């Protein structure tokens, strides 16, 4: 594959990831994360509270495919580009902090697990789903200066396992059908 083809493919995958991010934003997060202390009730904080909800993580399909088809660096940078551009277009600074923490943590964990080659795409995706949620909750606890949010960890943990497994199976099916011409 020539450099030009690589650049084009990376760009297309980043665009696809952005579109999936946008689609997911249209699905209401019924599980908002509350738990803010009353003194902290400023409007920016409240906006951010609606961000780390239970999401399917459609974007992770793209990251998984990039990870297995193109390689670690590509997956990492596609996710960074996706988070930065989506935050600039539709998000706020709090949302960016949550996304970048969850996204980076999950991408790094997925890269590490893939390198051990002990797990299939599904296992890697499950680990990514959980670490994405855990990363977000840690940042939320730091930024909002409250420990009350930790009560939502069980919900985010189990939803990370379920959505990670679903996304992993879809991602594996996509990976097995993509053929890159040398």
């Amino acid at each position, binding site marked *: 594959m020539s450099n030009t083809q690589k650049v084009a493919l990376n760009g297309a995958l980043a665009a696809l990831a952005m579109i999936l991010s946008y689609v997911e934003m249209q699905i*209401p997060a*019924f599980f*908002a994360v*509350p*738990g*803010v202390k*009353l*003194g902290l*009730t*400023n*409007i920016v904080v*409240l*906006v951010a*509270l*609606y961000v780390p909800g239970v999401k399917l993580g459609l974007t992770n399909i793209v990251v998984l495919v990039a990870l*297995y088809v193109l390689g670690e660096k590509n997956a990492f940078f596609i996710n960074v580009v996706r988070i930065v551009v989506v935050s600039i277009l539709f998000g706020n600074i709090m949302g960016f902090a949550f996304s970048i923490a969850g996204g980076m943590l999950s991408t790094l964990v997925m890269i590490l697990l893939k390198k051990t080659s*002990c*797990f*299939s*795409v*599904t*296992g890697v995706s*499950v*680990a990514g789903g*959980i670490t994405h949620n855990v990363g977000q909750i840690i940042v939320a606890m730091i930024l909002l200066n409250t420990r*009350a949010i*930790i*009560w939502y*960890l*069980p919900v985010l*943990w*189990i939803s990370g*396992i379920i959505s990670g*497994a679903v996304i992993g*199976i879809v991602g*594996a*099916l996509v*990976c*097995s059908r993509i053929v890159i011409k040398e």
Partner: protein
Amino acid sequence: MKKTLLRKNDIYLIGILLIIFLFILGGVKLTQKGGTEVVVSIDGVEAYSFPIDEDLEFEISGYNGGTNILVIQDRYAYLKEASCPDKLCVHMGKINKDGQSIICLPNRVVVEIRSAGKIKSEHDYDTVVG
């Protein structure tokens, strides 16, 4: 690339993660205590406080003329109705544990459960430095 969807190691991984989930759930449930008070604040200012063991239905007038209907029933508090378009607060369900809260962003209404004892100790300072 291996074509298998699910390997043995994946099942072990998911199993271990599920066991960790049960531990987290247990830990969280054990440390959570039921609250005694339902505190309502509007636009960051504490407006009302109700005991959680008395059933009532109350209309909260929020920011910009929005309204939420707060219901306290069987030691649980929830918002039955809201004037806002997304109704996120209504979907947030019933709360009764210390520190849990329901937030209605458009009306800037926060409903929080507290326990009286905890509030007392939090403000039990001699001096505040800094």
